[in-house]
């Protein structure tokens, strides 16, 4: 199974500030994914982080609010900008298909999540 390290594991932030979440995977992957889980809800995809190109955002999520970086094939960051209490959620990163062809990985793994509370 993949090893995905995510940090911080939790944080309490003041409204109007920004938080950057880091995600490190143990293999080179073509894509990485960022999800949000609001309290009591299911997981919703925020965006797909592509190496060498802009992230692809899902409907309802914009780059100004959730800027994403993908500097290499094993690392990505998600920033939650200008936070409000409505941003209080668990944010999870996930790995995508392996870069090396032929190893064919279909199973998607998740980091332990970042539990964010905004006051």
């Amino acid at each position, binding site marked *: *199974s993949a090893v995905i390290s995510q940090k911080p594991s939790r944080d309490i932030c003041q409204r109007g500030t920004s938080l950057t979440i880091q995600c490190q995977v143990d293999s080179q992957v073509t*894509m990485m*994914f960022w*999800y949000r*889980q609001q309290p009591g809800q*299911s*997981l*919703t*995809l925020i965006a*797909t982080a592509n190496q060498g190109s802009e992230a692809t955002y899902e409907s309802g999520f914009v780059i100004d609010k959730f800027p994403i970086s993908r500097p290499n094939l094993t690392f990505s960051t998600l920033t939650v900008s200008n936070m409000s209490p409505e941003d209080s959620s*668990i944010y*999870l990163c*996930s790995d*995508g*298909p392996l870069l090396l062809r032929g190893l064919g990985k*279909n*199973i*998607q*793994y*998740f980091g*332990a*999540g970042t*539990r964010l509370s905004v006051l």
Partner: protein
Amino acid sequence: GIQVEQSPPDLILQEGANSTLRCNFSDSVNNLQWFHQNPWGQLINLFYIPSGTKQNGRLSATTVATERYSLLYISSSQTTDSGVYFCAVKSTGTASKLTFGTGTRLQVTL
């Protein structure tokens, strides 16, 4: 996009009981995974099962892709089985995007 509905939404069991969780999806899929989210929020992979049947200890899963549903069976439940169970699918037409179901919240009591 694809819709993924799970039932029941909530389930309370006594320790030792068996249960069946269902996942219905609205389109053909090439990937289906079952996850257990523990009380600390960690998502644990249970099964990768786009079709067929698999078993792992007290858990087993069956996916009937042609009828667009999957079932997760939990036998002899234990308190450590408590948490939320999610199925997640990739629609045949949407490449790598994994869409999560609505979830089933399970509580196992002594």
